[in-house]
Every structure is written in C-alpha cells, then in structure tokens.
C-alpha cells in the first residue's frame, strides 16, 4: 500500500505560540543553539490504489479544503518511498 504524507505547518508569518513556548524551554533544559522552533502536524494517508497524478491531485484537494486551514496554514504533499 502506498503512503502519502501531508505536512501542515502554520504559515511562516503566523504566530506559532506552541513553537515559541518549546523554544523558550529548550535552553533551560540545556539544549542550546536552537534559534527557532515551529510545530506542525503530519498526516499519513494510506492509499488503496496507486499513487498517480489523479490520486495526488485528490489528496492536494483534501489537504487544501480539509486537512489544512489555508487561512493560516500551508501544507506539503509527498509520497513516502517504499521500504523507508
């Protein structure tokens, strides 16, 4: 079965309170040298059929209308290689 991964991230210009809170906590725990943190969501979609252009187009549509809130979020769609 083929897997397609949709990563949803807040748009770069949108405030990410979660990422900021994590970033502020990291140095306190001794993890220094990290300039910025942004937190997002990852969706793994298992396809019944082949990953063709039509399937990817459908997934992009799903991401656009449903998985991501494009008012504030961007998304990327990629195919997970077999055996990884």
């Amino acid at each position, binding site marked *: 079965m083929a897997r397609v991964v949709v990563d949803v991230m*807040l*748009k770069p*210009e*949108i*405030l990410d*309170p979660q990422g900021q809170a994590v970033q502020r906590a990291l140095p306190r725990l001794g993890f220094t040298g990290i300039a910025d943190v942004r937190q997002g969501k990852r969706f793994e979609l298992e396809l019944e059929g082949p990953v063709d252009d039509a399937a990817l187009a459908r997934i992009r549509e799903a991401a656009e209308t449903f998985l991501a*809130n494009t*008012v*504030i979020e961007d998304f990327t769609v990629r195919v997970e290689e077999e055996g990884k």
Partner: protein
Amino acid sequence: MSLDTVKNAEQTPDAAQPWAELGLKQDEYARVREILGRRPTGAELAMYSVMWSEHCSYKSSKVHLKQFGEKKPETDAMLVGIGENAGVVDVGQGYAVTFKVESHNHPSYIEPYQGAATGIGGIVRDILAMGARPVAVMDPLRFGAADHPDTRRVLPGIVAGIGGYGNCLGLPNIGGEVVFDSCYQGNPLVNALCVGVMKHEDIHLAQASGAGNKVILYGARTGGDGIGGVSVLASETFDDSKPAKRPAVQVGDPFQEKLLIECTLEIFGEKLVKGIQDLGGAGLSCATSELASAGSGGMRIDLDTVHLRDHTLSPEEILMSESQERMCAIVEPDKVARFLEICEKWDVIANVIGEVTDGERLEIYWHGELVVDVPPRTVAHEGPTYQRPFARPSWQDALQADAPTAERLARPTTGEGLKADLLKVASHPNQASKSWITDQYDRYVLGNTVLSHGEDSGMIRIDDETNLGVSVATDGNGRFTKLDPYTGAQLALAEAYRNVAAGGAKPLAVSDCLNFGSPEDPDVMWQFAEATRGLADACLTLGTPVTGGNVSLYNQTGEVAIHPTPVVAVLGVIDDVTRRTPVAFAEEGQLLYLLGDTEDELGGSAWSQAVHEHLGGLPPKVDLERERLLGEILISGSRDGMIDAAHDLSDGGLGQALVESCLKGGRGARVVVPEGLDPFVFLFSESAGRAVVAVPRSEELRFNDMCTARGLPATRIGVVDGDGLDVQGQFSVSLAELKDAHTGVIEALLG
C-alpha cells in the same frame, strides 16, 4: 525601496500616495495634508488611514453616540466614563468594577477559532489596562440558521475559540446568549464581555505625561499579524482581493496573555505605572497616539527598539501590526529597572521604546530618521465626523402592519395545541438548552462564580469576607429592534436590567455593543439613529449610564443587512451574594406568582418565530417605570428572603420560563390560567416588565403586602409541585418530555 522620511516628504510634495487603497476618502487625505502642512510620509499615511477608519474613529456613529453623554443620568456610581478603555463603576467597600462588551464579528467569520479567541484576548486587555484584575467573561453570540451548513463551520470554531482562549486564561465564562437567525448567515456576531475588579486607588488611565518618562512596550513580539486588519477586515464588507502577503488573521496566545495579566497586576501592585494602554486594533499607531493625545506632552518613539518576530517588517508595518498580547506603559525612569525585573520574572519580553517629551508632537524614528511627526490628537481624537443621511425605511410601515393577530397566525385553541406549541418553542434552537456550548467553557475557575449559564444573569463574588458581589446580564433582540429600533433597543436594556434584578442585584451601569449593517445605507442609519436614541432615553430614565462599549457596522452581505442588534450589558451590585435568587424551582409547595401585566403582545415573539417563522407587527410596549418597580420588588424580595426563585419573562413568555425553572430545579409546577386571560396569551405573550417568582408559603402575606403597597400587579398562578408542568384544564406534560424537547437540540444539529 527607500525610506519615506519626513524630510523626503517635504522634498517630494507631489509623490503619488495610495490613500484610496488604504481606505481614506479624497477629502480626508486633503485634510491630512492640511494638518501636516505637507504630504504625509508612508508611515503617517498608514497611521491616519487606520485611525480614521470607521472601526477606530466611529466617524459615522459618533454624532449619535454623543447622546449617551448628553442624556447621562445623575449617578454617583460612575468613576470613569466613556472614552477610556472601559468605564469604571463604584460598587462600594472601596471596590470598583470595570466592564465592557465589544465585537469581533468580521474576524470570527473569516477564521472562527482565532477570531473568537482574539476577541476575548482584546476585551480582557481593555479591562486589564484600567488597573483591574479580569474576573469573568461572557459572550453574546448570533449565528445564521441552526441547520445551515455554514453554521456548522462557524459555530463550533467560535465556541472552541472562546473556550480555548478563555479557559486557558483562567477566567470563568458566566453567561451570554446564543441566538440563531438566518439574517446573520454571512455575518455572525461574536461579542465578548469582560468584567474586572480593583480598588478605587488602583484605577489606571491611558495617558502619557511627565517629560522624560519612558514608554515601555511589553508582551508578545511584534509580527506581521493583521496588518491592515482594522481598516480592511473590520470596516468594509468582504471581498477576495485582499493581499496575501501578510496575514489578515491574528493568532492568539492565551498563555502569553495569562502571563501578561499576572505580570501587569504585579506591576500595578508596586505602583510602577503612570499610564497604560493595551494594543488592539491599529496596534502601536493607536496606543502611542492615544497615550500621547490624552497626556500633557509629546512622545518620541524609536521603532528600532521594538522586539520583532519578523525582521522584514517595514516601519509602516510595525506601526500597523496587530500582534496580540501586547501592552504599552508609561513609566518613570527610576522605576524602569523594577518594571523590567517583574517582566523577566513572568517571562514577558519588555523594551523601552521611547519617552514622553515636553513637545506637542508624536515623533517616530526608524534607523535614526524621522518617519512620523504629527500632532497626536489629530490622529487619535480629531478624526473625521460624518453626518450620514438616514431615513425611515420604505418597508417599515408594511412590516409593522403585518401584526401576528389571531386572524393572521393560527393560534392554538385546545390544550393539546397549547402543549404542542409550548414544546415547539422550547425545542427551537433559540430557546433550547445551550449546554453543549456552555459546557465547553470553564465556569468554576477562580472559585467565585455564584450564578452562571442557564441563570438570568452571571454573578460573581468579589470579596470572600463580606460576600459583596456583582452580576452582569447581556440581552439584545434583533427581531424586536427590526420591528421598531427605538423600542427594540429599550427592550434590550429593560430585559438586561430585569435579569440583573431577578438575580437579586441592583442595576448600576450599562455597556453596549451596537451591531448594525452599512452606515452608507440610509435605512440602516435610521435604525442606528433610532436605536441609540431609544437606548440613551431609557438609560436616563432607569438611571443606568452607558459607560462604554463599541459599534460594529457593515454587518451585511451585499444589500442585505443583519437585523439591527444592539446588545446591552447591565452591571449590578449585590451586597450579599448568599442572598442571590436562582431561576430553579427547588422547593416543593412554594407558591408561584406572576408579576406585572400580561397583554396580547406577540409581535417578534419566539412563538411567532418557532411556530410560524413570522416576523411582523410591533414589539411589546416598554414601561420603564414599571421595570424599575419590578426590579425593586425582585431585589427586596431576594434580600428579605421572600422569594426563593425568580425568572424574568422574555423569549417564549411565561411558558418558556416555567419550562426552564422546572427543569433546572427538577421540580414540576401546577398553574392556573388567571381569570380573564386567554390561555394562549398567558403562556406565550412576551409583554415586558414581568417575572415569575417562587414564594415560600410562610412569606406569602409579606410578599403580597409589599407588592400591593408598591402597586405592582402580582397574581398567584400556581405552586411548585409534581413531576411535570400542569396547566389546569388545558394540558400537562412530564418533566421527562420537557427535557427531551429542551435538551440535545444543539448537539443534534452541530455536535
């Protein structure tokens, strides 16, 4: 792109400027040039355009709003009136209470969760800026039809946003309203109210004075949030052509706001602040110009010192940014170190960004160059004023003539028919239980909530030792106001006043959120003029001054405006919260009295909507002296232990009030239709100035004597008894059947 400095503006007087795109009218742009004696710089143009927008300047509404000042009733209670972030009211024992209701309508339609969340954030900072600890929030909401698909998108997001932000801030949500009507389909109303408490000596004002005092910006870092949001989002109707480069939507961080609250209160506690302003619409432009305008001197700001989240921002964008969770304080130089120390304790970023000067200008620098040099009053307080034309709509007479008479709308004539209509009204989304919504809000946090959802008003204790408390109710009936804006606005006040009194508190003051369509439509402007006139007149009669609020215009899609919806919040005080009166019938055998006069008044009623989907005729008459008398009886009855339950009669009339009080208490009621009254009118009329109360038998004589002596009609209509609602000679319905009808409605549609 080269920097547009003041010097540059002087040297290039004829450079073309995008004043129209920024929402300024030609004469407004000309006036800016006249004020400055030259063309404005880009940053100045940005400031004027946003501060002179409808949202910030109230340019269409202020000629009408000034009545609230002109007709202000005599009262000793008002400590701070209109014009500050929020009004402040004296509630005794050295306490002062501040409260305000505000709209966040358009942003909540675009992005329901964040729009509603940042609406809470904004009103809470307004209250905080007065020097008060925020102690409760409420949300009056209006949505399109409950079964419309877009309501499914909008409502859950808005409710989750209110809960997500308010719960995380630790503020109990103690009331509000949820009303569905297709007129709000593309324009949901998300109003937010906050109450804050302080001691008299802790009141703070938004003014900058004392040359050499420092200007400190603290809270969240400044990003590109909502740039142009105020003028674009909040003032004009929607279109798809907005630029995509910067987010129009602001994202709230309630955690940051919680830190900001605690940090600010600690700073107030050590008396480190001379003046303070929160950053809301128009961000730093608004805060600096308002602080300087209200103060004694000028102000100099160095924009390079503003802590940025996005380093690509231009000076114009920094000034316009609406990043949330920020405040601006004026601090004496020797107190700056301690101020910054407290900010550090709470992990709050703080920077000195400028100082108060002894000049008269607001000067803003960027990379060492002067980019803004303006008289602050011309930005903040001397914006344009419009005398918009208004005229009674041509359709108003026909609407009023379409009265819900027995001939026009079929009325039930049998017991079974009455029962069926009672259930229809009780199960209509507007009257049905809202617990699916309100259970998503924390009502317990802070441990002072005495009355909340499902009660007539929200009540909180403000002193653990003395049991002093305050209560707030919000009401607004767009249907009534559509039928007659003058009366509708008065009915909104009357209902909120009555709700506060029904809980046992004495009404003191008003805050209002006036939600209307486009002011450029003379019909809408007439509604606005009539509603403000009605509200101002009623506030004068009832002795409850308007302390502040907000106006939201352009709530319309195309030519179609929402029902005119003035939402009125009334604040009351109660000396001993243990005497409060709940709505629940809790004691078997107590006697039910109907207070006030019931007439055949069904225009705009819940019955006409739930059963016939009809809107026409005239709303119920208003008798403010009667409201005041009823209020006095309810308060005395509560204080002296003569009534154990009280419920105001409004949407759905007596029938609906009985359903709610029975279900809340888990007790039934047996009632008799008084002689001479039609059973249908008895159950469904929405005549104002009425309440139903439960009187312990031992108090009946005393209660009757009081009503007789004061001249308030009080009719014994029955007794708390059994496990159903029994209207003698007509019908009876079990509590289980009532509960079935009344609950589960909202979740079935939206859950």
